[in-house]
Structure formats: structure tokens, C-alpha cells
């Protein structure tokens, strides 16, 4: 809990629900007649609406990117290290928009919200949503907020896929696209991990085929296992060795099956905490959106062709020990962008933290981030004219 709000924090912030009445046709063929998106914004939108930055969240993220909801909050938003006054995405200059994607469980329409047709939670009946559907819903949010062209769209991991999709689907509506620790599509190994996570959830006796809300239960064990597995893939072997090694909680092994190694209790703690705050149906949906994304598929697996309409500038960042979305996966995107003759820069950050590194303020990462956002600023006439602050 913050005793006082740090100077470089956006401070106490409040999310709001934005309602959409225009039916949304989804990739799966179904339609959402109306829906809500939970949105949080920081900074001020300038007169010509040119200083807006969209933050796309990853698997378990949401609209609460930075700042605190109350003085009782233990932690700030999930990307507070990068968003705030004087931070790489400087809220003194940019109007920053975070949202909870459709199908999420933090206030936007999703499995845990009420289906207007039945008066009950959507549960497993919530349609499978894709990265393409999210980008369409985000485009409508931009219209609603009066943003014709984003100064930048920034996303890490699954968020990076959304940023990439924007550049393909709505090339005129962004000037810069920052894709961090991401991939152009999942590998078989990635999909395999997701499938184990889904099995853990759906085979939990408390899952009730997704109708657990009616039984007032939560498939906690399944969610916990899914998260524990996920968490291992977010860290690196080096990072785990550094953080836990073979350290024992009690200093000696106990010849029983209670958690004795530090790494065991850490994973259990993370899993349990997550299972108390995340929705199982949403977890299933998010992993499916990851699995399905493959923008090159319609172009004969030619990613350069898929990106040929993009007109924004790109910044790609990867982390050396990330094995979930390894640097090679970012390089695939970079190579395709070079082939498609797009403007692109790429930095590979040396970091032991694995995939999680994208959320950590590693000095060189922040330096590159800051330098790129200066470029975004220079390409935003209203900001460049002011000469920055």
C-alpha cells in the first residue's frame, strides 16, 4: 500500500465502463449485440487527438496499467514501471489508454458478466474471441474517444500481437507500433503449454463445464495449476537458479510431499493468488486467442505479404532468456518487415528474467523504450511544436 503516491506515478485513477451498442461480428461467426469495455486513461488528450497511446494487455492483464485505485492498493497497475509522468510512456505528454479486452474478467463483457439473453453469467457460452476481434473492438473504442490516429500502440506478448494486428488491419490509424517480447504466431510448443493449462482447468471437478458460477464454486486447483505452469514458462532457467536455486524453506529436506524448496512454495503462492482473482473461463479464452493468431496464414504463410499494407513505424524488443517468445520469434517479424520495406528498429535486451522481463524496468530496456517514445513524440506535431517538457 502506498503511504504516499510517488511523484512519477499517475496517482489515484478510476476506470470507467464504455458501452457499445453496435453489434460486433466475431471471427467465430457469432455476434455480440452489445458489450462493455472497462477502460482507464492517463494524461490529457490534446486538441487534435494526436497524442494518444494505446496499451494492449497480455494474457492476464487488464485496463489498470498504472497508478492506484485507492490508497489501500498493495501494488500499482501492471505496467506502472513504464507509464507515468517522466516515465518512458510519459503521461505529461501522452494520453494513455488501457482497456480490459472482450472476454476478460476485469469488468469488460466476458464469461463472468451477465448474458442479457438469459440473465445469467455467459460462462462457457461466451463466444471465443480472437486478436482480430479485440482489435476491431479497440478501433470502436478509438472512435468513441475521438482518436483518429494513435501516436503509438504498444503491447507485450499477446499485447504485441494486438499491436501488430492494428498495423495490418487499420494501417492509417497508428503512426507507431511497439511489439515487445512477442511472436507472429504460436509455436507447437507454445500451444502445447496452453493445452496443458486448459486441461488443468477443465478437468477440475469444480469447473462444472464452465458453469461454476451457478454452483458458487471456482475451479481453483485447475487455475492454480495453469498459472504455475504458465509461470514457469515466464521465467528462465537462469532466472530461477538466481532467484531460488535449490534453497530450502526449512534448511533441510523433510522426506514428505509438503513444499520444501523455495521454488515450490513460490509457485504455489503465485498459483493460489492468481486462482483467487482470475476467471477460469477467461483463462481458457485468452489461451485460445493466443493459439489462433496467425496473420500470415491467409497470405500463404508469407508474413511479409501480410504486413505489406502497414504504414506505421515499428519497434521490436525481445529478451535474451525469454523462451516463451524467444528473440528468434521477434526476429521473424523484423525480417518480414524489412522484406516488406517497412520502417523497423529492433533491440535484443540482455536480461535473465525470461518472458517476464517485459514488465520489469531493466535499465537498457527502459533506455530503448524512452528513446523510441522520443521518436513518437517527434512524430506528433502538436507535441514536437511544444518542444517537449
Amino acid at each position, binding site marked *: 500500500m502506498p503511504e504516499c503516491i510517488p511523484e512519477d506515478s499517475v496517482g489515484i485513477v478510476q476506470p470507467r465502463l464504455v458501452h457499445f451498442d453496435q453489434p460486433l461480428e466475431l471471427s467465430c461467426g457469432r455476434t455480440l449485440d452489445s458489450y462493455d469495455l472497462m477502460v482507464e486513461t492517463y494524461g490529457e488528450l490534446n486538441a487534435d487527438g494526436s497524442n494518444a497511446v494505446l496499451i494492449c494487455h497480455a494474457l492476464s492483464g487488464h485496463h489498470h496499467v498504472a497508478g492506484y485505485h485507492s490508497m489501500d492498493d498493495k501494488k500499482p497497475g501492471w505496467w506502472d514501471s513504464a507509464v507515468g509522468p517522466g516515465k518512458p510512456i510519459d503521461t505529461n505528454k501522452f494520453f494513455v489508454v488501457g482497456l480490459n479486452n472482450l472476454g476478460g474478467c476485469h469488468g469488460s463483457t466476458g464469461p463472468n458478466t451477465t448474458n442479457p439473453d438469459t440473465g445469467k453469467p455467459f460462462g462457457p457460452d461466451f463466444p471465443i474471441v480472437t486478436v482480430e476481434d479485440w482489435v476491431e473492438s479497440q478501433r470502436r473504442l478509438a472512435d468513441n474517444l475521438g482518436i483518429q490516429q494513435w501516436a503509438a500502440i504498444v503491447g507485450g506478448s499477446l499485447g504485441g500481437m494486438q499491436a501488430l494486428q492494428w498495423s495490418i488491419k487499420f494501417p492509417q490509424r497508428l503512426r507507431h507500433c511497439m511489439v515487445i517480447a512477442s511472436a507472429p504466431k504460436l509455436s507447437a510448443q507454445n500451444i502445447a503449454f496452453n493445452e496443458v493449462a486448459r486441461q488443468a482447468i477443465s478437468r477440475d471437478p469444480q469447473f462444472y463445464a464452465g458453469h461454476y458460477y451457478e454452483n458458487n464454486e471456482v475451479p481453483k486447483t485447475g487455475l492454480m495449476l495453469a498459472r504455475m505452469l504458465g509461470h514457469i514458462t515466464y521465467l528462465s532457467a537462469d532466472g530461477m537458479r538466481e532467484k531460488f536455486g535449490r534453497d530450502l524453506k526449512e534448511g533441510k529436506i523433510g522426506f514428505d510431499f509438503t513444499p520444501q524448496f523455495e521454488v515450490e512454495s513460490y509457485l504455489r503462492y503465485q498459483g493460489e493468488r492468481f486462482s483467487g482473482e482470475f476467471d477460469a473461463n477467461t483463462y481458457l479464452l485468452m489461451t485460445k486467442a493466443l493459439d489462433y493468431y496467425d496473420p500470415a496464414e491467409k497470405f500463404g504463410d508469407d508474413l511479409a505479404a501480410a504486413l505489406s499494407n502497414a504504414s506505421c513505424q515499428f519497434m521490436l524488443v525481445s529478451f535474451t532468456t525469454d523462451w516463451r517468445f524467444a528473440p528468434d520469434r521477434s526476429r521473424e517479424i523484423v525480417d518480414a518487415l*524489412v522484406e516488406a520495406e517497412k520502417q523497423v528498429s529492433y533491440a*535484443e535486451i540482455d536480461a535473465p528474467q525470461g518472458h517476464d522481463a517485459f514488465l520489469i524496468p531493466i535499465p537498457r530496456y527502459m533506455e530503448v523504450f524512452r528513446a523510441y517514445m522520443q521518436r513518437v513524440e517527434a512524430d506528433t506535431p502538436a507535441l514536437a511544436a511544444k518542444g517537449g517538457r
Partner: protein
Amino acid sequence: MRSDLDIIKNWVKPGSRVLDLGCGDGELLHCLTQEKKIRGYGLEIDHDNITCCIAKGVNVIEKNIDDGLASIKDNSFDTVIMTQALQVMSRPELIVDEMLRIGKECIVTFPNFGHWRARGYLAFRGKMPVSKFLPYTWYNTPNIHFCTFKDFERLCVDRNIYIDERTVVDNEHKDHWWIRLWPNMLGEIAIYRITR
């Protein structure tokens, strides 16, 4: 602007697609973009240089050139440039081949190890040359493949590479009549335009 870059600038056609291997702080690409409207990328491994490029709006891709350029398609660039980096490559001859594969033409510059000062240093002191221009000692130098102009031109003959143009200058990148007379002895830096 370094004056060798000034010379190179004049060899690059307006509007062309340029790849700069070891682009440093992006000065050449920045200038070519401003003045010649080229579309370019730089490859670089030095972190500070990469940040510099990003800040000034130069497209920079973090990549170790020694790992190869296999991901870049044949003939995808009009001009591939490498300034003062050939001597740090682990396989210079393969890099030159790769440059000629991905570029229609290439511009290469490197320091001349056949310059009289280097020859004199080794001849009279019996030690590997160390100078203001090449300040490293033999064990810590990144320059692991020194050559002379004659060596490079021999490589070109052996590998069927045409030298379309050559300018030899002193360490201030100035051209002099005596350098033209005896380039391999008196020239310090050569700038070559090559094709295959």
C-alpha cells in the same frame, strides 16, 4: 560528418534502398535519409549506438553481422555499405560475399595495414603497430583481420568481384596527389565500390 562518409554519400543514388552494416550512431543513414531520401536500415551491436539511432529516427536492427545475413533475401538492397568494420569480422571474405548477394552494389572502407607508418612500426620497432588511429594492442584489438589495399584487391580478383571505383585518402579522409601515386604505401583508408 566524417569525411569518408561524405565521399560515400556521393556514391549513393537518391531514393535507393540502403543497408549499413555496423552503422554506428546512424550518422551516415540519417544524412542519406535527409539528403538523398534513401530508405535504409542499419545493423549494429553496440548498445549506446543502437539507442542513438533509435532516438534520431534511424532504423536500426540489433544484430551481430558475424552471425550471417541469411535472413535477408538476394538483391533486396540497392547498396550495402560497411565502413571500417571489415577488419573486425571473423570471416571477412564471407561477409563480402553476403554483401554482394543481398546488394546490387557494395561500398566497403577499411584501414590500410600497408601504410608506411604501419610498415615502419613493425620493421623498426619489431612490434605490432599501435597508433592514434589504431590504438589497440595485439591482444585486445577488435581488429582481427587487417589487410592492405593490395590484399583486398587480390581477394576481389580471386572471388570475381569487380572494383567499380576506389578512392584512397589519408586519416583525415583527404585525397592527395602523392597518395594516388603510391596508394598502398601512402593511403590510410580506402573506399571501394564493388559489384559482382
